């Protein structure tokens, strides 16, 4: 049985985390976070797949369905992801207004320069 789906989940997860850590641009960080969350969604759906099962939609003559529960859970997770991304981008917008830039290193330098 091939595990390509799980392997790609791990790759996406690490990719997302890498972008969050390594990239200074705040918008890119939000992107990275989004990729990270998507990988988890893929993971859950993969968990729900039953061997030989179809998509969990009622249909005539179909005996084996995949597990619908992870799909339902992931609907919630997708909503959470959207909310997080939206909030993150809103914050980036405000930061841009306040600092004039969206690069983390410049912002940190400006903060260090002003007070403290």
């Amino acid at each position, binding site marked *: 049985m091939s595990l390509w789906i799980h392997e790609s989940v791990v790759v996406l997860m690490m990719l997302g985390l890498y972008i969050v850590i390594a990239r200074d641009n705040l918008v890119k960080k939000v992107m990275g976070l989004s990729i990270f969350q998507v990988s988890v969604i893929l993971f*859950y759906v993969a968990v729900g797949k039953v061997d030989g099962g179809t998509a969990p939609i009622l249909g005539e003559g179909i005996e084996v369905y995949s597990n619908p529960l*992870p799909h339902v859970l992931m609907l*919630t*997770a997708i909503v959470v992801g959207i909310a997080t991304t939206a*909030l*993150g981008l809103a*914050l980036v917008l405000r*930061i841009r207004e306040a600092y004039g830039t969206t690069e983390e290193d410049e912002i940190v330098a400006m*903060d260090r320069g002003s007070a403290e």
Partner: protein
Amino acid sequence: MSHLPVLCVLLPLFAAPIALLVRHRHVVRWMAILVAWADLAIALELLSQASEAPIHYWLGGWAPPLGIELVIDEVNAFLLVIVTAMASVVLPFGPGSAALAIPDGRRHLFYAAFLLCMCGLLGISATGDAFNVFVFLEVTSLSSYTLIALGKGRRALMAAFSYLVMGTIGGTFILIGVGLLYQMTGTLNMADLAERLPAVMETRTVLVAFGFLVCGSSIKLAVFPLHQWLPNAYSHAPSMVSAFLASTATKVSYYVLVRVLFGIFGAAFVFGTAKLHWLLLPASLAAMFLGSLAAIFQTDVKRLLAYSSIAQIGYMTLGLAMNSVNGLAGGLVHLFNHALTKGGLFLVVACVTWRVGSSKLDDFAGLGKRMPLTVLAFAIGGFSLIGVPGTAGFISKWYLVTAALEKGWLWLAILILLSSLLAVAYVFRVLEVCWFREPPEGDSGEPPPNMWIPAWILIGATIFFGLWTDLTGSVAERAAAFLMGVG
């Protein structure tokens, strides 16, 4: 069955959209206050019911393990009381306009976010379903990012953003952990997981799930070295928000960790197979010492209190890591005691900010002459952080030192006591500035009643629960005995 459990969680959730629609800020404020007080009454009723037997409530009438259930036992009823009590005390605090940076026309949005945060915290505490924890955790997190971003100045924005990034990673880790557990057991109900896990305990998947869950909770709990978001978040948020979040968010995350470790996996796995204490014990000690040391050198009092929180969270996780009933009891009782103390201290600092306009240590000069009672409140809260007998903080320290000596770990007892001395240093640093320096020109006098009453309620509670611990100590002891017996 009675619908009280779900009402407790959902009452703020119903109030939040009403707050959005009704724009009049005074109406919204009073609605929020009444909702908090009503919720507190419900939580107290739940606590008295749960002291006899745990309450199981099936959402929508669907039976677990397929349906989602709320399980209210003594410990989380306690937590419900803490969250609602903190909200009840913090919401009426102050005239609002000085503490918050939001223009009048947007004030109702603040209360909507606050109510959502409260709903999320209550939901995390009450639920018995693992995925439900994630959902409510995200509700809490998102609303707290919003609340923190409302602070004065632009640093609050970066603080909220950093917290968003780290908090999301933490929440997603918890999600991964839950998913892996679901993959191995097929259930999401916590009690059911505890039953089904022993069969698959030896697999690598379960160990990885354990790792993700612990890591995710630790990020939300600000365990060293995952604590980086906390100082910025607490110091730049509005004082009311700091007071509320410092006393509830980390406490609820601690409870999540406790439920995961003892309610799902069980002490035998945690300390035997996974050997978590090898990691958690040094991390807690590092938090205790480095947090307190960092606090000594701060020039802003709110930042000082934030680093102090990191140290105090270290005490809580130390109790967890000791693998002893008294240790866990100490951690649980410190959950309550620190909530009171830190909430009270942040409100006191808010009173000072109202008078002097900033929370920088230099601006506290001569405060002993201008606002002596407020400084006294700060001193009492500080004594609780140090662990002076007669305050709640002493009770927690006592349990921790007793647990260390019972295990024969004299070195640990000495380390716990030494770290209390560091707290003396940073508390008295503030008191010395208030006491020894000359005050600048300006008005004197205590803050208005709607500010000093909430602050003194919490500070007074610190002394009360330092002397009469029927409600706190005995509950913690029973809960710890019960939790350590599982698994």
